[in-house]
């Protein structure tokens, strides 16, 4: 039986555990500390939990200033409001000033499904990828979330961590090797490589299992770090498997698929072609989360048929 966990609770617990060991950690709130999973932190460390109200542009600047004095601020709120809204503050105050601030965008992707395009976040990775020196991590299961928070404390420099809201299953063993900038090969295979990230990982995982049950040996990579991306692992997949499919709950422009395409496009010699699964150039619709994922081909069965169509093989279930 799979264990499903709330990513925000996972983030909050990991932050609390990190803060118990490291007294430089602060939690910054934009009137949404509770829904960002930071209530346990606030209760245990009220003096290190700073409430600002709904002023995300200003909070990014405050976070930068706090970091210059040696604190490690974690600022978590709804993904578009910590990325698109304060983009220039992120670029100048965190990126350009190279400050040790960790921004956590929650309810990323389509997870605020019913609230529509203002609250969904399908461009956050794209815009932040343009900022030199920012590390972008999209953890794909509760273990990766915990490890990403731990890595964020150790890593010096600005970082963006992207999490969803609906519960996601535990996919990794607790002792999985997690290194920033290094993808995790979760299944070996030679027929196709599926590279997935963040909130889309577990449906890609299910898709890979289905494909394998149908005799298609799918390699599955969790590409939790989008920047810097694991070039070596992508190039190896492009040489060792005949096709690559990326899966993300993000626009096709500027996200994981685009980052993989950047590498494949400059790769000399014959290599695997690429198919990108994600949301194309449109404002996403609204409605129940699973149905919305279905509109953009992000459900496991849809990923299966896209992969089958792309590699030109449809095999009956044995």
């Amino acid at each position, binding site marked *: 039986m799979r264990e499903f966990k709330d990513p925000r609770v996972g983030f909050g617990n990991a932050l609390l555990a990190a803060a118990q060991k490291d007294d430089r950690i*602060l939690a910054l709130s934009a009137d949404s500390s509770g829904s960002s999973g930071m209530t346990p932190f606030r209760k245990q460390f009220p*003096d*290190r939990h*700073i409430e*600002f*109200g709904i*002023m995300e*542009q*200003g*909070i*990014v*600047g*405050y*976070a*930068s*200033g*706090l*970091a*210059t*004095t*040696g*604190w490690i601020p974690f600022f978590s709120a709804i993904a578009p409001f910590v990325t698109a809204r304060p983009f*220039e*503050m992120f670029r*100048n*105050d965190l990126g*350009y*000033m*190279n400050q040790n601030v960790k921004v956590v965008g929650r309810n990323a992707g389509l997870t605020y499904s019913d609230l529509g395009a203002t609250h969904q976040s399908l461009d956050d990775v794209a815009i932040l990828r343009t900022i030199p020196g920012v590390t972008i991590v999209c953890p794909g299961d509760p273990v990766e979330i915990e490890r990403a928070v731990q890595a964020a404390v150790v890593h010096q420099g600005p970082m963006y961590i992207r999490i969803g809201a609906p519960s996601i299953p535990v996919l990794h063993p607790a002792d999985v090797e997690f290194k920033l900038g290094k993808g995790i090969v979760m299944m070996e295979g030679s027929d196709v490589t599926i590279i997935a990230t963040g909130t889309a990982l577990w449906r890609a995982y299910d898709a890979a299992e289905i494909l394998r049950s149908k005799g298609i040996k799918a390699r599955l990579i969790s590409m939790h770090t989008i920047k810097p991306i694991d070039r070596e692992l992508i190039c190896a997949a492009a040489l060792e498997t005949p096709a690559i499919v990326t899966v993300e709950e993000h626009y096709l422009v500027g996200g994981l698929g685009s980052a993989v395409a950047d590498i494949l496009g400059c790769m000399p010699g014959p290599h695997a072609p690429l198919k990108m699964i994600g949301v194309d150039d449109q404002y996403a619709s609204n409605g129940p989360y699973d149905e919305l994922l279905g509109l953009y081909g992000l459900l496991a069965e849809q990923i299966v048929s896209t992969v089958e169509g792309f590699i030109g093989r449809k095999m009956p279930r044995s």
Partner: protein
Amino acid sequence: MNALRPEETATLEAAALRIRQDILRMVRAGGAGHVGGAMSCADIMAAHYFSILRIDPAKPNWPDRDRLILSAGHKCMALYAALRQRGYFDESILDTYGALKSRVPGHPVMQKLPGVEANTGALGHGLSIAGGMAMGLKLKKSPAKVYVVMGDGELAEGSNWEAAAAASHHKLDNLLVFVDCNGLQLSGPTADIMNYSPLAAKWAAFGWSVRTIDGHDFGQIVGNAREAPFEAGKPSIVIANTVKAKGISFAEAKVDYHYWKPKADEMARAVAELEAAAVEGLKA
């Protein structure tokens, strides 16, 4: 109020004059620059770097140093001139103004130069960063203070008012802002472009303790800085009325000198005026 002895005032006058001369030196090197604002805040900068700030140029990263954030980053020639006069770097660097990869760009960069505390220039960023510094220092129980120099045109950026509200809400009384209120911005008088008057009432309504001074009077600048916080538990702000391009008679209070690309004769006149002022200063 005059908080200064005559010799202290003379020292600051000399420092400010050298700042203004260095501004011209950079404009000569680069061919153009944001002269109007740099000149209008030159006295404020001189007062900070030669009297107000607890800093040690030999230890630019001393954790308990006072910080000065030049939020209106385009006035950075005044900052560079003050820093070099305090010995943060060699004055020859000023002559690279405008050159490829210069350490003194048109907006300040902390990675390029010791003493620069933030990468400002995009308006409306400095107060948030400074607020974070003030908060961080308070949390560490540091005695250090954070000073901010803003422009009056800059105050139309909404992000300033987020920062202002938070500074007051969090009782950052180790934060002191000087608004270099020269009344002019790029394309005209600030009151015509986007009128934020009455400024003092707006800041007071945001929970700040406000004073208004003559921004070219060293006694008032230093005296008020020494008295900050003006009220316990509140951030303080000084609205310093200044003259844009102060020190160059033909440019003073003229919007055309916000960004100045001088003709040769103009530059010669400006240099001569400051030279004459320096000679006067020596006599006095």
